[in-house]
């Protein structure tokens, strides 16, 4: 595979400061895309710029809060100004958890998750759809979760947001398909990042026992699936969900 298979593409990856998003940004940059990776703080953005910049030219770090429309608008202007065009590849990866049993869950916990994990995709896709439509080319990849399909006690809010992303992506795939834009989902299983390091040991062990491949996934293994969906080779795949979960759930 050529290392510059994504040359000429402009990729926007949200939540690229650590974990899965960082691995996605690195991989897209390695494949030749100009990448804008985002963090929620200026220091985080500077660190992304440093990391990506060391590996590839023409990559930048941006500060973005996906829950704020003005912040999304500003990030898109920055991408266009600094990388030369609006994104041709959009990866909605930023996401958070706020676990609680439904009976204890505050409405604020519900709202924060839906806003950050789902409404964010609405905002960013809308902001990118116009230029992709005009160009008759675009790849949108939304990062969901195995939990969005399997459900998980204590994660009603998170699972709803992640299942929502799948329905959203299928609908958008139908809307934008006629213009050569694909919209797909990658649903990670149990991946070794800050998000899963927070889990209590007992829960972690129980989860591991349910994974046929017997281990946590690496962020790079999610990045590989995302990168594939961005490649020319994946041009005929749209509205799909690729599960990368060690066999934890077989769909």
């Amino acid at each position, binding site marked *: 595979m050529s290392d510059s298979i994504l040359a000429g593409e402009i990729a926007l990856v949200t939540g690229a400061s650590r974990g899965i998003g960082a691995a996605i940004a690195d991989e897209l940059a390695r494949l030749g895309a100009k990448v804008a990776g985002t963090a929620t703080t200026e220091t985080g953005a500077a660190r992304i710029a440093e990391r990506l910049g060391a590996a590839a030219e023409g990559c930048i770090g941006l500060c973005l809060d996906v829950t704020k429309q003005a912040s999304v608008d500003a990030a898109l202007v920055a991408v266009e100004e600094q990388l030369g065009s609006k994104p041709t590849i959009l990866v909605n990866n930023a996401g958070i958890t706020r676990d609680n049993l439904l009976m204890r869950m505050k409405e604020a916990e519900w709202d924060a998750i839906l806003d950050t994990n789902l409404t964010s995709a609405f905002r960013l896709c809308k902001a990118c759809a*116009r230029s992709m*439509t*005009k160009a008759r080319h675009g790849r949108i990849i939304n990062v969901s979760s195995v939990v969005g399909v399997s459900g998980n006690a204590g994660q009603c809010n998170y699972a709803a947001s992640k299942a929502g992303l799948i329905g959203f992506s299928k609908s958008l795939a139908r*809307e934008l398909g*006629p*213009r050569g834009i694909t919209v797909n989902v990658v649903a990670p299983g149990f991946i070794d990042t800050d998000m899963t390091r927070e889990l209590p040991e007992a829960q972690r062990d129980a989860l591991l026992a349910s994974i046929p491949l017997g281990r946590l996934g690496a962020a790079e293994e999610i990045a590989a699936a995302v990168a594939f969906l961005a490649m020319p080779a994946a041009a005929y795949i749209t509205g799909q969900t690729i599960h990368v979960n060690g066999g934890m759930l077989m769909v």
Partner: protein
Amino acid sequence: MSSVEERVRKIVVEQLGVKEEEVTMDASFVDDLGADSLDTVELVMALEEEFETEIPDEDAEKITKVKEAVDYVNAHLG
């Protein structure tokens, strides 16, 4: 400089891939010129670019015929 009407009709021809003579003032984008909903959104985008303006969604929804597009541009860009 061509007239607003000529510029609008040229965009309609380009965007919808129809023949110039089909683009009468009374032609409806959907019913007469075969546009689907995504085509009409793109048509408005193209008008916005040609006339360097932003057409709010509420107004865009009302532009369904060639004449309505011409009238809109004339009314808003004088």
